[in-house]
């Protein structure tokens, strides 16, 4: 019975649909090409002896994703609407199946989708982390030990994009699970589109991973042209997977914004929302606009390779810098998509664990919007060494420095919130503090890169790697783990094992410090990024060994977390209703939350973070109006 439910789950149906769709798509274009008498072009692919041309392969990959979504059942309701059939939302498990099978099938409840995002994110995080550890072991010694250059290139490129997919999924997990709960809505504004947002991410991750099997690619996660135009076939699947992930981002971001605008509880004005909602909305504002431009850049690259349209290759008059502009117009703001929800979690959790009001609520809320706005004006600081127009350099340097202003607002608020607070150090709080320390490393190492004279020397070095990993860990990974521990009792109704949580923290945080400072130090000493080998005379071998060991420690500590979550879900004691004594509405209802969140609607009567103030209620459960 269990096996049957797994085998008929939307994941398995979808993968079969993706395979069938891919083959159909390839066959369709190959038949047309055959009828026209065209020779195979581009990077060809040998499918059981048949030589498949690149255009057929690309079309097949797209049809495959549609096949996945059709077979999984994501489009079912919409297809019915097209022929005029009404389809009420289906709540609960599929007919005749146990409750847990909801998580394996297309479900429209935002909490189920949030948890689906969550476990997929962790799974993808483990895959991306494994890639990192594989090439990190190679880097421990100069010379090539156990990877070829091509394998190294594919692994570090895949590590980048797979981790970004994981982070986007993690952001989706937090926003989808938390926003409706926090604003008192019964679900998202568009539940079916919410399911689509999650499910389209699954086949696109499959495409990216499949790209490693068909030649891999050596462009890094940025996929710069013209290198991407010459890379093996794998780059096509990377570009396609990246592009399809954009559909997920855009749909999910629109959903979050609309839900927040139209479905807030009575009395919940904008400045009385839990602070995380502000962060989620600010991130969504970036996501639903900027994603389109990277989509254009990726589509252009796909078309340039597959059908010979010229945009980026200088051979036909194209401009490779254009790719970089389109790419970074998304990819710079998107790091704020990653960190804003994380910083929101920090602001959300600090008052709970310090038992004090959040310092400067309005400033924090508006600083999220400020970061989102400034984030659109700084993209070319990634291109100081690319040969872009000189006149653009200094304005972009200045705008980059402005990022420090709203970010600084957050730091000062966090310090002021902790000041003289009654702090307690449960695992979520530890991760919040770890996040602040790590994000500070990332923040301080940034201006050196934003300044043109120093960037020219450090741009192609491991300093960038250190800076970027510090911002991502401090801005997303640590807060995400804090959020997982903090809302774990809400999601499962049970408490995780505190001892293992603390062990996770005390392994990961020093591990990360060693890794980050190590990366920055080898960067200054001459270690270039994206290179599989280095000169032993640089004298950085010992640091590289330390970085690799630190990476292994971080990897093991994450596995401890996964073990903790899986085992605690079955065996740990049932959590108290409000274990953190939080004022937030989601903790005033049973855990796990009921299907429609609030059986009784609540009304907001005060400010959200008035911890420690007597008689300062945030919400009031209004009794149900009886009859009419």
């Amino acid at each position, binding site marked *: 019975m269990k096996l049957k439910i797994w085998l008929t789950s939307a994941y398995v149906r979808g993968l079969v649909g993706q395979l069938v769709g891919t083959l159909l798509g390839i066959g369709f274009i190959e038949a047309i090409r055959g009828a026209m008498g065209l020779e195979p072009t581009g990077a060809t692919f040998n499918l059981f002896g048949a030589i498949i041309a690149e255009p057929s392969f690309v079309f097949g990959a797209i049809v495959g994703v549609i096949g996945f979504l059709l077979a999984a059942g994501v489009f079912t309701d919409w297809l019915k609407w097209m022929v005029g059939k009404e389809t009420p939302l289906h709540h*609960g498990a599929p007919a005749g199946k146990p409750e847990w099978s909801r998580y394996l099938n297309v479900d429209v409840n935002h909490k189920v989708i949030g948890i689906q995002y969550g476990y997929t994110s962790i799974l993808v995080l483990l895959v991306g982390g494994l890639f990192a550890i594989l090439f990190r072991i190679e880097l421990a010694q100069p010379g090539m030990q156990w990877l070829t250059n091509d394998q190294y290139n594919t692994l570090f490129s895949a590590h980048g994009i797979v981790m970004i997919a994981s982070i986007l999924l993690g952001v989706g997990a937090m926003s989808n699970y938390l926003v409706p709960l926090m604003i008192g809505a019964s679900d998202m504004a568009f539940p079916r589109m919410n399911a689509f947002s999650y499910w389209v991410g699954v086949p696109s991750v499959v495409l990216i991973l499949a790209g490693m099997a068909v030649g891999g690619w050596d462009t890094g996660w940025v996929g710069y042209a013209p290198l991407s135009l010459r890379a093996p076939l794998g780059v096509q699947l990377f570009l396609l997977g990246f592009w399809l992930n954009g559909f997920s981002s855009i749909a999910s971001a629109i959903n979050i914004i609309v839900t927040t605008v139209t479905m807030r509880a009575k009395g919940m004005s904008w400045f009385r929302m839990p602070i995380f909602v502000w962060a989620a909305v600010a991130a969504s504002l970036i996501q*639903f606009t900027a994603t389109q431009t990277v989509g254009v850049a990726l589509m252009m690259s796909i078309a340039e390779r597959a059908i010979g349209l*010229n945009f980026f290759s200088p051979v036909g008059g194209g401009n490779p810098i*254009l790719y970089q502009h*389109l790419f970074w117009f998304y990819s710079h703001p998107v790091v704020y998509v990653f960190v804003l929800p994380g910083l929101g979690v920090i602001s959300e959790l600090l008052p709970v664990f310090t038992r004090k009001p959040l310092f400067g609520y309005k400033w924090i809320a508006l600083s999220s919007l400020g970061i989102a706005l400034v984030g659109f004006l700084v993209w070319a600081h990634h291109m100081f060494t690319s040969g872009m127009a000189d006149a653009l350099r200094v304005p972009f340097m200045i705008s980059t420095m402005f990022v420090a202003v709203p970010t600084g607002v957050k730091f000062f608020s966090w310090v002021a919130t902790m000041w003289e607070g009654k702090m307690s150090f449960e695992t979520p709080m530890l991760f919040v503090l770890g996040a602040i320390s790590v994000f500070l490393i990332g923040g301080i190492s940034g201006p050196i890169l934003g300044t043109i004279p120093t960037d020219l020397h450090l741009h192609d070095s491991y300093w960038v790697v250190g800076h970027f990993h510090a911002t991502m860990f401090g801005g997303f990974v640590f807060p995400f783990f804090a959020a997982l521990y903090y809302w774990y009792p809400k999601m499962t109704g049970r408490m995780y094992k505190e001892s293992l949580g603390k062990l996770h923290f005390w392994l990961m945080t020093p591990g990360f410090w060693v890794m980050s400072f190590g990366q920055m130090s080898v960067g200054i000493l001459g270690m270039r990024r994206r290179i599989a080998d280095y000169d032993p005379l640089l004298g950085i071998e010992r640091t590289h060994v330390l970085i690799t060991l630190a990476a292994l420690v971080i990897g093991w500590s994450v596995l401890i977390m996964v073990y903790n979550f899986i085992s605690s879900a079955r065996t740990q004691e049932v959590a108290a209703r409000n274990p953190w004594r939080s004022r937030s509405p989601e903790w005033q209802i049973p855990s796990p939350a009921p299907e429609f969140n609030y059986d009784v609607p609540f009304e907001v009567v005060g400010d959200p973070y008035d911890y420690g103030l007597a008689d300062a209620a945030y919400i009031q459960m209004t009794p149900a109006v009886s009859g009419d």
Partner: protein
Amino acid sequence: MGAVTTPSHHDSHAHGPEISWEVQLKSNRLGLWLFMFSEVFLFAALLVARFVLWYDADLGIVRPELSQELGLVTTVILLFSSFFMNRAEMAMEYGDRKRFLNGLLVTAVLGTLFFIGVVVMEWNILGLQGELFGIELFGHLKPADGVISGIFFAMTGMHALHVLTGLIFIMVVWNNGRNGHYSPEKHWGVEACAIYWHYVDVVWVFYYPALYLIGTAVHAM
């Protein structure tokens, strides 16, 4: 995953708290407009790419040599289709189903003519040749003609894709309208279809001059 569940305290087939029609309509409208705003970035990115790539050090901004007559006729056709779309939507608001359906059909026919004008005639995917009143009917650009054709196919192609999905949308709404769906009070599907179609039109208002009018005409770069 067995234990990480959200056991419902309700009957598992229970219906959620009803979202009122007004709230859902507000959500739908905001959602569609946000999507349209999102698409501004898509079309604007291509427009920016056009001004970056169709630039010559000596000539300044350039454009491909295209048939002015063909461009003007297709543009006029598309703009007229918006008029009939508006007529159809107004007819639905006043409950005139016949005029509503006819308006949609005229819109779809004009949209299809535009689509043919771009894909069959301007792109000349069938490789045809012909003249009418001394005007070349079919375009000459080939995908491999460097950035001139790259941007041309990208911009017209992205727009044509939206025209095509708009046409499908119109036919779906037409078919549902024929089967008695929609009422003067509740016709979100019609409204969404109309907004989408007008939007596709407005995009062309920016694309037409960028492709056909602005800059010095060149044969190839």
